[in-house]
Structures are given as C-alpha cells and as structure tokens.
C-alpha cells in the first residue's frame, strides 16, 4: 500500500479531529481560569502532538526502500504520546502555601476507565501480530516479497511485509508500548489540580488518558491495517499470476490461500476503520469549576502555572 495514502489518510483524520476541537472550544460554556487553562493546554498538546507525529512519520517514511517505513505509524504515535505526557506536566495546579494543611481525596482517581480504547489498542496489537506472522511464513527468500509455489512454478510479489519487516515493526511497537506505559503512570501520579474541584480534575485526567491511549491505539491499528492490507492485496495478485503460469493450481472459490488473502484484506480494512474510530475518540467536556463567580478572581490567583 502506498505510504502516501496513509499520509493523506492520517492528515485528513487529524484535520477532522482538530476541527471538532475548535468547534467545541468555540461553543463551550464559559469556564474559570483553572478550567480554561487546563482545556487550552489539552488542545495545545493535541495540536503539537499531531504536528510532531506527522513530521516524525514523514522523516521515518522518507528512506526510500528501507524496511523502517513499517515502523512509521508506531514511532509517530509514540511521538504523540510523549507530547501528551509533556502536556500533563504543564497542567495548571493549585499553589499550596508553605506550612498549609494539604488534603487529598481518596476517590479522586476513580471513574477513569477507558475500556473501549484499551480494546482498540489490543485489537491493533493482535492485528499487527497476525500480519507479521502471516507475512513471515509466506515471504520469499529475500524476506521482502510474498511467494506462492505450485508444482515447479513460483511467483513472488512486492511490496510484502516479509521477515525483514519484523524487527522494525516489533521495535516500533515496543517503543510505543514503553512510552504509553510511562505516560499512563505520569497521568495517574499527577497531583490534583484543586482538591475542591474533583469533577474538573477527573475530566482533565480522563481526557489525558484518552489522548494517550488514542495515539497508542491508532498507531497499532494503522500498523496492523497496513500489514494486513499489503499481505492481502499482494498475495491476491501473486495468486492471479500463478494461475497464469500453473494451470493446475487451485481456482476460486477453493483456493484457500486466496481466501486467506481476502480475509487479510477485510481485516486490514476493519483495522483502518478502527484507527479512525480511535483517532476521533472523544474526550469528556471539561466542566465549569464549581466556585466560578463572575468577577471573582480568587481562584485565578491560585493558579500556579
């Protein structure tokens, strides 16, 4: 599959996500300074993350015929995760004066489940693993093409995620897993923005968690989609050419290798749809702080960053 297609695809989805965010910002109810600062930092982290991820994807992809192009989605997603993690460190928080009593809510970090996105992430990992495994066992001697044989006839086709692509994909996946794990820990351990605003803190924390997981899910799903689609389309092409060479080779609908190629294509398309769903996964709206009073700047003065 042409990498430019993925570039345009990712760009279009990110642009759509950006538009949705801008519309929400314009139509959102007025917030006090703490909530407003949190929301703007979240939008900034999303925009900067998207730009940085697009840049990194471009750099990794522009290496001609290098196998490292297969790691572009996961490395780009890892960049987005790192930016989201940096954004978490920049969130505003209440300044506590020296010697003042400090309080912590025991239930502050409850209700932060993101099961749907986690399922998307694991689906991406499973699709990637399947694409790699099928690509490995059906690759030609060069490790970069798909091969089918029948009697004395052998046909190869490329591009194909054969053995040579395993290392870049696994390394990219490992990098993405590592930074996602670190980012989730940073979000979990971030001090409360204001102990008297649990709903605000929960919405911001859940939003941060979603931003990290949607990068991770999108990275793995796009990788899985590209592997499965490439395997499916190339193997179908190889099968058609093999039939021209070996007339006794299996014919549709009883050619199980070709049926498998169709199944891989369908799985790739499903993963692509999953990636769109993950990228557009909505974050909770940040509620107005409970103590907001028009003209009251008491809370504003407590924002430290």
């Amino acid at each position, binding site marked *: 599959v042409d990498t430019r297609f993925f570039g345009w695809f990712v760009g279009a989805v990110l642009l759509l996500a950006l538009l949705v965010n801008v519309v929400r910002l314009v139509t959102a109810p007025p917030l006090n300074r703490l909530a407003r600062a949190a929301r703007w930092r979240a939008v900034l982290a999303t925009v900067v993350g998207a730009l940085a991820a697009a840049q990194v994807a471009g750099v990794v992809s522009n290496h001609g015929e290098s196998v490292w192009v297969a790691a572009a989605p996961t490395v780009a997603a890892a960049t987005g995760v790192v930016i989201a993690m940096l954004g978490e460190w920049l969130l505003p928080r209440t300044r*506590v004066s020296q*010697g*003042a*009593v*400090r*309080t*912590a*809510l*025991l*239930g*502050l*970090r*409850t209700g932060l489940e993101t099961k749907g996105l986690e399922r998307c992430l694991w689906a991406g990992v499973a699709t990637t693993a399947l694409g790699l495994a099928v690509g490995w066992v059906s690759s030609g001697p060069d490790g970069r093409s798909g091969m089918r044989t029948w009697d004395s006839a052998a046909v190869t086709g490329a591009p194909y995620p054969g053995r040579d692509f395993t290392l870049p994909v696994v390394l990219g996946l490992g990098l993405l897993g590592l930074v996602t794990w670190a980012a989730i*820990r940073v979000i*979990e*351990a*971030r*001090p*409360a923005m204001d*102990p008297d605003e*649990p709903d605000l803190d929960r919405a911001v924390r859940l939003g941060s968690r979603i931003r990290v997981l949607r990068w991770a899910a999108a990275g793995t799903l796009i990788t899985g989609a590209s592997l499965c689609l490439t395997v499916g389309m190339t193997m179908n092409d190889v099968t058609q050419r093999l039939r021209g060479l070996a007339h006794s080779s299996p014919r549709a609908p009883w050619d199980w290798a070709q049926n498998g190629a169709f199944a891989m294509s369908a799985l790739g398309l499903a993963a692509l749809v999953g990636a769109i769903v993950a990228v557009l996964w909505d974050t909770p709206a940040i509620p107005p702080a409970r103590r907001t009073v028009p003209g009251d700047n008491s809370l504003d003065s407590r924002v430290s960053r």
Partner: protein
Amino acid sequence: VTDDLRVAVDPRSAEPPFEQVRAQLAGLITSGRLLPGDRLPTVRALAADLGLAVNTVARAFKELEAAGLVETRRRAGTVVASGEHTADVAVAALATKYALAVREAGLDDATALDLVRSALRTSGQTP
C-alpha cells in the same frame, strides 16, 4: 470511595506526616467509612496530592498492612482488608448511606423505616 473521604496532612503538627496518614486511613477503615474491597489510591498518587515523599506514604501503607487493615493485591493495588470488619460495622456503614439517601429524597422517618421493614420481610427469615 466517595468524594467526601479525604486525608489531610498538617506540616506544622508535631505528629510525623506518615503517622497522620496512617491514623486517618485507619480511622476511616475501623469506622466503616471505607469498606472491605475499597481501593486506596496508589502510594505515588497520594504522595503527589499531599506533597509528601513517596517513602512517607509507603511507610503509612506498610504499617496499615502490618496491622491487617489493608492488603496489597497484584492487579487491584492496595485495598481495604476484609478481616477487620464485623458484620455490625459494615451494616452500620450501609445504614448511614441509606439514611443520607432518605434525607436527599426528602422521605420522612416513618416511610424510611417502613421500607426497611418491607425489605427485611422480603429477604426471608432471620437466622
């Protein structure tokens, strides 16, 4: 774990911070406001919110664990242990929650007690 459950640390107190954390959590558990299975925040999260060192909160948790009030489970983290609650304490905590719900709903005492009697009748004979 509801939003009214808090732990506070006073840096000016003569009591060391770890003891303040330990005593308040122990109080919440023995009074039944934290029930068996309730999950406590992670050591890192609680330390961050209270502005304490991770080791300080870890020491408080360790002492609670040694006293059998909490237990650490691999996936669930630190949870309130089940052994420290008599049935009375656990039911009293639930009764308090019920009373709060009655007040919020605006029911009078007689109606609230009728509801309890009805629930007891439908739940079967006393042992």
